[in-house]
């Protein structure tokens, strides 16, 4: 459920909204960072860096963009991936990890199943690139090398896969209870 007042206050760079967003989305952001960085301290620092960067540079967020949670999670992933890549640790991130205890998010099992079902409807080629680019945090070049396909093909498959997922989730949402 989106909080319109929080989202508009965050877009206005309101200090209280930053604090509220940290409370509401911090755990999810830490989980996203941890998935990439594999280090609890680094994940926490990464989340702090995201808020600090948005505060100092002026956030590009607006409610028209979509949910604040999605925006912050993507910011966090991008920052974590940038850090990993700059440290030339991309190979390390290829070993996936479970989310350690203490960081696991409370999830609606129905929502979770809905997303998993949508994932299974991707083609094998689409699922391959999503798995590597998203869950393994590989760069496009690394995914291309892994699958022995051109980088342009990786880009195309990834975009189509995400759009397909979006369509699946929209349809399921419309059909749901």
């Amino acid at each position: 459920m989106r909080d319109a007042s929080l989202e508009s206050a965050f877009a206005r760079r309101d200090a209280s909204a930053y604090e509220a967003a940290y409370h509401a989305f911090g755990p999810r952001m830490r989980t996203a960072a941890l998935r990439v960085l594999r280090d609890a301290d680094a994940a926490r620092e990464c989340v702090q860096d995201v808020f600090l960067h948005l505060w100092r540079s002026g956030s590009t967020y607006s409610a028209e963009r979509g949910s604040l949670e999605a925006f912050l999670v993507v910011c966090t992933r991008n920052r974590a991936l940038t850090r990993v890549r700059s440290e030339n640790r991309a190979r390390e991130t290829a070993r996936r990890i479970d989310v350690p205890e203490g960081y696991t998010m409370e999830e609606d099992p129905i929502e979770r199943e809905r997303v998993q079902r949508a994932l299974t409807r991707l083609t094998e080629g689409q699922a391959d690139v999503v798995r590597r680019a998203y869950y393994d945090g590989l760069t496009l070049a690394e995914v291309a090398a892994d699958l022995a396909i051109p980088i342009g093909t990786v880009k195309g498959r990834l975009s189509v896969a995400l759009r397909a997922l979006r369509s699946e989730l929209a349809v399921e949402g419309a059909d749901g209870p």
Partner: protein
Amino acid sequence: MDREFHIDDSAELYAVGALDERERAEVDAHVAECPECLRRLGEAEETVLALERVNIAEPADRSVSVMPIRPRGFAAWWLAVAAAAAFILGFVVPHGTPRSGDATLAMIGSHFSHAQFTGKGPAAKVIYARDRSWYYVIVAGGGRYEVYGIGNGRDVDLGSTQPQGATSELFARVATPFGRIELRANGAAIETAAIR
């Protein structure tokens, strides 16, 4: 990225983390001007959020050290970090700024609050330690303003705000607490924030 060409597949690549910083900056610049692409990017981000909710990871690598999530007292860390960053990066050199790393860490760990300035000047706020040992003033726009601490019948000159992109800022660590922080332009008070 030209306004005419739209971001196309870059929306999904941005959201999934497949673009580098330069490419992301191009997308950010484009969506700032293009509502259609902004919506498309937002949709891609929502899809990534859905993926984030599904953990398809392999068995845990327990070699990872795990720290417990901090309690509420750590909530507004980012404000203190912003203040610390101003100090660490030398954006401002206020009166009495701490010189040691220990002092900075102590500052980060302290509790703090914030207050809006009211008056005829630009939008501004002050973030401050609850023990009133430091103040971090942020003013919208790129102007320079004199900052004074008012308390116990004294006006203490804390220095001037320094432009930092879209804002002008000052960090000041002080020995005595204040009841108000005042912004002045050419010596005349334009805004005041009550410190509670």
